[in-house]
């Protein structure tokens, strides 16, 4: 009889990160019973703007922020709910994350963890969302300079798009799963603006090999690759906190070199598989089908490991 290749476990830690709600991800991520929410749903702090658009609101405006313990250490955490308004940044949504990051300067947690799940700016509150993203990036940099690692976890339904992609690029370390996507313009937006010849958004294999977790990990756009389980993200987050680089000139110069090298080496590539081939993968076409274990093993064997200065 065939073995069962898919987890049928009911343990919350074995549940799919992609499928879990923002609250379920946080509950499983931190040590059991340690999560404490700031401005919880009972406070009903909801968007003042959505009613004008005849849209329903959420008690938490699509983001849960709070404090918990990770393997005993105190961490500040934020989780976006990708199913509410695509996890987009509105005024309150953004301000909750701004506040959390500013608090890190005082509270000095072991890390701030951001569980991204966002399409970017909430258009109904565009100016507030856009400005909040700028505030968040500034606050992340300040937290990092104060020695607090900011780790982003990406594997939700909405991916990490628009301003969310820029915030992710500001974090100390990023963990991504296969289904995770990191990008600025989404496939539909590019297709709308430039046509299906530029980007056929319905070709999902193309979407994932252009923006998906494996590609981001391979080119150094993310620092760790996790299975799509809450446990895997928890383990990866724990591991990455200790590896966070300082935020200083040396780090940014290294990132400058990393990004310039990428342009030189891959600037003329038409497709991700070309890049993977040049990275030294023998069978680039097989990459999307690899399981995590094989993929991680392959990363280790690469002639040049993806560099992570950020």
């Amino acid at each position, binding site marked *: 009889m065939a073995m069962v290749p898919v987890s049928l476990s009911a343990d919350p830690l074995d549940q799919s990160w992609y*499928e879990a709600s923002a609250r379920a991800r946080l509950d499983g991520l931190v040590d059991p019973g340690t999560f404490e929410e700031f401005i919880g749903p009972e406070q009903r702090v909801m968007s003042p703007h959505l009613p004008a658009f005849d849209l329903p609101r959420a008690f938490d405006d699509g983001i849960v922020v709070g404090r918990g313990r990770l393997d005993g250490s105190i961490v500040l955490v934020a989780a976006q709910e990708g199913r509410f308004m695509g996890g987009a940044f509105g005024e309150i949504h953004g301000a909750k994350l701004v506040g959390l990051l500013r608090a890190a300067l005082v509270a000095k947690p072991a890390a701030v963890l951001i569980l991204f799940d966002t399409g970017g700016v909430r258009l109904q509150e565009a100016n507030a969302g856009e400005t909040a993203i700028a505030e968040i990036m500034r606050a992340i940099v300040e937290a990092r300079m104060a020695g607090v690692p900011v780790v982003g976890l990406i594997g939700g339904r909405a991916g990490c798009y628009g301003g969310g992609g820029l915030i992710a690029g500001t974090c100390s370390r990023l963990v991504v799963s296969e*289904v995770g996507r990191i990008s600025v313009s989404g496939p539909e937006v590019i297709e709308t603006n430039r046509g299906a010849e530029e980007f056929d958004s319905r070709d999902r294999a193309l979407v994932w090999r252009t923006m998906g977790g494996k590609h981001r990990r391979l080119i150094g756009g993310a620092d760790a690759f996790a299975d799509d389980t809450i446990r895997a993200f928890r383990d990866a987050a724990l591991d990455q906190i200790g590896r966070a680089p300082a935020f200083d000139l040396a780090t940014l110069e290294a990132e400058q070199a990393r990004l310039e090298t990428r342009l030189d080496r891959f600037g003329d590539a038409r497709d991700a598989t070309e890049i993977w081939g040049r990275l030294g993968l023998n069978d680039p076409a097989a990459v999307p089908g690899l399981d995590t274990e094989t993929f991680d093993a392959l990363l280790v064997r690469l002639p040049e490991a993806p560099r992570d200065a950020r």
Partner: protein
Amino acid sequence: MTDWRRQRSARDERIERGRAHAQGKVVAAASVVDLLEAVLLPGDRVCLEGDNQKQADCLARGLSACDPARVHDLHMVQSGVVLPEHLDIFEQGIARRLDYSYSGPQGARIARMLYGGQIALGAVHTYLELFARYFIDLTPNVALIAGVSADRDGNLYTGPNTEDTPTVVEATAFKNGVVIAQVNEIVDTVPRVDIPGDRVDFVVEADRPFYVEPLFTRDPAAVTETQILMAMMAIKGIYAEYGIRRLNHGIGFGTAAIELLLPTFAERLGLKGRIATHWALNPHPSLIPAIESGWVEQIHCFGSEVGMDRYIRERPDVFFTGSDGSLRSNRAFCQTAGLYACDLFIGSTLQIDLQGNSSTVTANRVAGFGGAPNMGSDPHGRRHPSDPWMKAGEEAGGTGDPALRRGRKLVVQLVETFGDKLVPAFVERLDALELARKLDLELAPVMVYADDVTHIVTEEGIANLLLCRTLDEREQAIRGVAGYTDIGRGRDHAMVETLRSRGIIRRPEDLGIDPLDADRSLLAARSIKDLVHWSGGLYEPPAKFRNW
């Protein structure tokens, strides 16, 4: 003196005219229009092959490019109205009459054209019925079919998607018709001969491979808790109760949920080997976990499914495969199997009325029914017993000598009380009746008639219509599972409770099911990727279903 060979001579003349555009039997893609204009005559009955899966799309494009002055008033007799060209030809005057079976993606446009009088409609058939008429009164003059490859003698390899081809060719080639096949490539030797060359008059090397719709792929990621609850009820309250081993599933998410619960929920109930072992079914990717877990003994298929070919090749104990190793499907045989050799059909619908008649035709959409009216009917010609069939017959009761009582096929409607946009599935009167009135149809397009349906499963419970003894009981049994629709809220509460005490209505709790247990963690696969893992990498889903 009577000429008994007029049709034969006419056929020979058509072929002769066509040969001018061919080298032997082989025709270049660029010459398709010339070929069709040479072979076709005004008023011809034409079968343009296409169903809910594969399409003779190169020939469809060619037909729609014909000069309506030369080719016009065709009578199309085909399974599927699926491609835009299938309807373009009616707008252009190339075709006039239509007898068909399925029109899923063109449902809205075909409705507009019917209302607009651009199509003279014969009937909306079930597949097997249309096939039957190919041999009696709708025999094609010309058949335009699709295959994977052919040799220069016309020997045809249809590949895993054989589907309607043998039936269409049988009716056309042996009754003085002309058979034109499009193939993806001309080869020296075909991998296996699905259609012998002497039945194929022309072979067109198509400009691109024929289109196949992955209609039977349901992404487990989209299965909802409600669908899981309904699947749990169906398994426990019907499959286990009657011991259903031979069956057919529709294509909805509800039946996909059942397939995904077999190795988990049903396994825990100890049902392995006792239910769901023999299938008339397309190769549903969502059945992979059950197959891999040893649930399934064999499956005969109407057609194939995109991405399943390698998997099927590696599981010849389960699927019907040819000497070349690839799937052999056959819609006519599989529909026959679904009719006579299965004890249960379970599928979904868009509307059910108070008696249990159902239809997927709504005011704006005429989707056709494909195989559902066939599989969802009680075969009165059946003469072999089986436990589920006999048990259902017993429940249906009836007067007269019990020794002369026959069995009943179980025909189950699996419907959520509200569909998309909160449209209720339960209605006083089917939209199909209004459509029939407006179009002046003699027969309303009903998918499954009330006297064929035996059970209705909704998220609220199961109604066993076999046990109803009066029309009033039947109506209240339906209202009793119709949830919060107007029909459901219009129930006689006392009578519904009486029906429940008689086991005619069964709620989840009556079946020992807690709705809160209906969780996605019960699904053996929660994503297409999980299905790929279950298949050991053999299932290769099309790009639109991937998120990796």
